[in-house]
């Protein structure tokens, strides 16, 4: 019997394959930016500012004459690092909090639920803005802000999953074998609760890229000259009528990355369903 490998199954589906290829390309850009980018991201060339896309500058240049394509390639670093790190922190924290709240219940559950419901009632962008207003702008602050902004989502999802799972007979059976809380949470509850949380995390990464871009657009994220897609679009607004490519290409980069993440997330949802997999065997 074939081993259960959801990622492989996801990649084999058409939309999973295409989106995975695009995501790999974006990741390669982020990892190997200095090798791929034709120019350095911070070399200014004021006489050549706002230049049209050409053979020398495929995507044109920005208001300081910097090569736009190079900045977009470097910008992938900022966007991906911030979004992936923030969401990973958020998912791990949400799994821990949600599992503990659901499993142990009592005052801890009530406290977690109250805080989570409170933050859940605000849009993520508002929470992130408030947090950055408190801790100050910068890449690190944006990561912290995004991870806290999404924490409620993962905590709620995990809690709901564990609440349903903890009444399953196999949990009682395992207790009766003499298992402790640790074994039950880590060997039974979390593995069964993980699928939807991972998929939600995957989809939230797309949103987090947009949130990072939005914060960058407001000038709260990566500080110049470090390129970030959101900040690039922000500076492009002033040139929108003379050099629209400055705002169009970073916007396209964001759109393509987020769409690919969502498509891959969809493919993953399908392949992660163990019942789907087994029916085909």
């Amino acid at each position, binding site marked *: 019997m074939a081993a259960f490998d959801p990622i492989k199954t996801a990649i084999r589906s058409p939309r999973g394959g295409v989106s995975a290829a695009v995501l790999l390309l974006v990741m390669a850009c982020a990892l190997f930016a200095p090798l791929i980018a034709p120019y350095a991201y911070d070399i200014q060339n004021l006489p050549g500012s706002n230049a049209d896309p050409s053979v020398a500058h495929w995507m044109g240049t920005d208001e300081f004459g910097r090569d736009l394509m190079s900045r977009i390639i470097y910008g992938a670093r900022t966007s991906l690092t911030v979004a992936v790190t923030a969401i990973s922190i958020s998912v791990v924290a949400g799994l821990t909090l949600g599992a503990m709240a659901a499993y142990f219940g009592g005052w801890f559950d009530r406290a977690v639920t109250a805080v989570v419901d409170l933050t859940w009632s605000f849009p993520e962008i508002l929470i992130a803005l408030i947090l950055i207003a408190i801790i100050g702008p910068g890449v690190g602050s944006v990561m912290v802000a995004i991870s806290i902004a999404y924490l409620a989502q993962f905590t709620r999802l995990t809690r709901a999953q564990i609440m349903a799972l903890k009444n399953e*007979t196999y949990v009682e059976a395992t207790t009766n*074998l*003499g298992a402790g809380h640790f074994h039950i949470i880590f060997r039974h509850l979390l593995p069964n609760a993980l699928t939807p949380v991972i998929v939600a995390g995957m989809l939230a990464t797309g949103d987090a890229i947009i949130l990072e871009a939005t914060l960058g657009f407001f000038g709260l994220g990566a500080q110049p000259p470090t390129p970030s897609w959101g900040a690039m679009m922000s500076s492009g607004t002033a040139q929108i009528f003379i050099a629209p490519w400055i705002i169009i290409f970073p916007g396209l980069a964001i759109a393509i990355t987020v769409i690919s993440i969502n498509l891959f997330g969809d493919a993953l949802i399908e392949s992660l369903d*163990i019942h789907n997999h087994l029916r085909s065997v």
Partner: protein
Amino acid sequence: MGIAPATKDDDLVTITGLTREFSSGGGFLRPRRTMRAVNDVSLDVPRGKVTGVVGESGCGKSTLARLVLRLLEATTGTVEFDGKDLAAQSQGEMRKLRRQMQMVFQDPYSAIDPRYTIRRALLEPFQVQGEAQTAAEAKATVDELISMVGLSPRMMESFPHQLSGGQKQRVGIARALALRPTFLVLDEPTASLDVSIQAQIIDLLESLKEELGLTYLFISHDLSLVRYFCDRVVVMYLGRVMEILPGAEARPRHHYAHALLDSNFEPDPARRKVVTMLGGEIPSPFATIPGCAFAARCPAASELCKRERPPLADLGNGHMIACHHPMD
């Protein structure tokens, strides 16, 4: 108050005055309501025998099963297993004791983690008990368990939902037997299976009992099964023990037990008799009943029955009955 039966050496489990309350509701200006799922139950489970517990759904049979294994904590009362008070055991001692007392669950469909292969599920007891096994030992263990319950070794790498309900229940039994227990609680082990599969599972349980010298506490609502399978039958109603019949052939003398066992369908038309029909409704489990729980529906109920709870009295031969006016 029921009368606690004296502890005898041949009793593996002794239950004394066991009560479990659940509360529900409660909130702003609303009182919490309390129900006694198991109400002052005293019972002993003799070694090497099958003790059956019957009753309608909601009479507290499953709660009793969980209390006996300390999967639920009792509100009051004690459960002694092999002379040890379970409530007094530390976590570590309880873990060791669990090797000897296992359970087969009603719903085989959710009794195995859907992400576990059968092999992994059968090795989990050893993992939980901190018993390291080499690959060869593990293989021998799984092979033995799987053949013990009559499954094919081919199924070892299967996932639970690739198996039928009966096969899953066999896996459930194999897992319960993995640690070589002496005591098995069977919580309606055949209730969610087809009739033909039920018979196979009961046959398997019967032969395993002989082979391994097991003691069973068999929870069921299937009366004919209980009469066929059990050495003693405990009849429960609304969390209380109404009657304990010493053998499958013993004639019930409690009005409820009589009506319950009488409702059993007799396949032979010549032996069919007029069935006693019960009037009235089962009281709400939240209601506090000062007297006999069955008084509202009992044909022989008197004022005394409504006022005073009848104690569980011995009629001789281990035939116990909680009734002010037993049948002749």
